[in-house]
């Protein structure tokens, strides 16, 4: 097992290399001068020139790339120009915030989605099924930035039930943070819930119609056990794939949600970094998100192996 994971870890290196290179190229392609962005509009020509030199931007691209690669290999993500702080520290402070949004959202989505999906599948063709599936369809089709706006409009502005901005502060008690989490989590959980519902439903349906479930029924196993134990477990792999994708998506896809709710997570960090042409920060944050993505994918594979031991992962030979 350990070795397996190690091998998988090695497999993610090329992807990360691509990510780092791509980010490097893309950041340098973004129009706009980081030096000017740092210095602000009032900077004079000389100020900008001086700053460029301090930032090492006067070097040829190839050597910048080389330096950056060496730096990354050493685990050094550099210093953010706009924050004047090490990138790693900045990211480390933001990750928990994003997780605070992403994990509960995904968890809620998973529980809700599985229940809805299973219920729908079991009652295939009934009113409940139709209702759930319509909801799920609306859910997957939802532009969440719009949903966010509407939620704020209704629940914060008109009803005044929930706060609208930021993530509150632990110093004001955990309740404060939770109150701040409600709307963004709802927003963030919408699509995953809907996706889980749909995928669970179709996957359960498929397995219900499969031979092994028929065989179980023929053996007189109770229907509830058949559904919630056997059918659910054999229906899990696609759900887990989606879980991985959604989790990875949540981690970074919170960009829109975070922007709307001014949530200080990775999403807003990156958007801010792009605005500020903060190369080191963009690169660092993207790399971390990509890393999260690949690691989650890897975990998905491992979980797959635990759940369904007879799955081959490679596309073939």
């Amino acid at each position, binding site marked *: 097992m350990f070795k397996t994971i190690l091998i998988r870890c090695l497999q993610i290196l*090329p*992807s*990360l*290399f*691509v*990510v780092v*290179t*791509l980010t490097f190229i*893309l*950041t340098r*392609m*973004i*129009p706009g001068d980081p030096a000017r962005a740092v210095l602000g509009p009032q900077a004079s020509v000389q100020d900008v020139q001086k700053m460029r030199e301090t930032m090492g931007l006067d070097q040829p691209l190839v050597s910048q790339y080389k330096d950056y690669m060496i730096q990354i290999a050493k685990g050094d993500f550099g210093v953010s120009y706009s924050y004047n702080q090490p990138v790693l520290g900045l990211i480390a402070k933001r990750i928990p915030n994003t997780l605070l949004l992403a994990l509960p959202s995904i968890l809620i989505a998973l529980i809700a989605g599985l229940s809805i999906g299973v219920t729908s599948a079991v009652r295939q063709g009934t009113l409940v099924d139709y209702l759930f599936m319509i909801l799920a*369809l*609306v859910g*997957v*089709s*939802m*532009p969440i*930035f*719009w949903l966010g*706006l*509407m939620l*704020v*409009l209704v629940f914060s*502005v008109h009803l005044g039930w929930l706060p609208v901005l930021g993530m509150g502060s632990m110093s004001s008690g955990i309740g404060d943070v939770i109150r701040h989490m409600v709307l963004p989590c709802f927003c963030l959980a919408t699509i995953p819930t809907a996706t889980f519902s749909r995928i669970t439903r179709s996957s359960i349906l*498929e397995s219900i119609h499969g031979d092994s479930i028929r065989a179980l029924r023929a053996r007189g196993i109770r229907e509830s056990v058949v559904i919630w134990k056997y059918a659910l477990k054999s229906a899990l792999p696609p759900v887990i794939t989606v879980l991985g994708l959604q989790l*990875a*998506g949540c*981690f*970074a*896809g919170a*960009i*829109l949600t975070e*922007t709307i709710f001014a949530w200080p997570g990775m999403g807003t960090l*990156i*958007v801010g970094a*792009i605005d500020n042409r903060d190369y080191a920060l*963009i690169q660092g944050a*993207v790399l971390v*998100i*990509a890393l999260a*993505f*690949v690691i989650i994918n890897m975990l998905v594979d491992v979980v797959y192996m635990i759940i369904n031991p007879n799955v081959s992962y490679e*596309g*073939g030979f």
Partner: protein
Amino acid sequence: MAKVLLLDQQSQEEILRKERKANNAWNKLKRNKTAVLGLAAVCFMIAIAVFAPLITDGKPNEIHPIDAYLTFFQKGHLLGTDEFGRDLFTRICYGARVSLLVAAGATIVGGIAGVLLGLLAGYMGGIVDAVVMRIMDGVLAFPFILLSIVLMTVLGSGMTNVILAIGIAEIPRFARVVRGQVLVVKREEYCNAGRVIGISHFRMLFHHILPNTISEVIVYATLNIASAIISESALSFLGLGIDLPTASWGSILRAGRNSLNTAPHIAAVSGVFILITVIGFNLLGDGIRDVLDPKMKK
């Protein structure tokens, strides 16, 4: 009633013909209620986009500052007006053009490139596969919206650039879908049959493998148009979309956001249009999948 004879060739033929007709993709789609609903929504949106000049006064950008922020039905404005007094319905109709065009364009860009790469990777296998797919994985590791944002920043605003940005970001997804499918199809016996005959790689790819993956691609593309519409709106919403003053649903939504309290209908209406269209494409995609998937035949 004349008895139907199972033995006679004709009634057998009859049945076959009927079945062929019933199994015709289009007829199957027509029988799929939800798909028809989706198709209707999509067609409606396409219609308002195409006939925008006919059903509106054709001046989506003409400003009347005095009439700013009217709501529904005021002064003959069906859906009210925006911050410059431009008729919202007109802008929504013209916005449909942009949103649909961008979504379709991006899907075509991403689709063509992705399909080609996926075909190549899946068919060639080995080192080509490894290289292409690692790059795709790398790109995929970028969160989609982030990649579009960065690409938009790199490319600058404008319709072609939005199409490119979303399209490029979509390439890996298409490539994955196609590659997965190619891996299945290329091991089908009929491909082996082709090999035994000695057909060329080119013919194999474009006569046998591509046609047999295309239904997956069509399904995926339909669903993808739905997400591309959202992506376009999201980009416009973040202020990275098409050029002013051209309307797109996202840019209307963005403007609506800035007057959420004064004129909530702007954001609401544009959002609803996006939502309905996306639902439409999703329904249609699901329908097409059901129709093309032999497992789902009723």
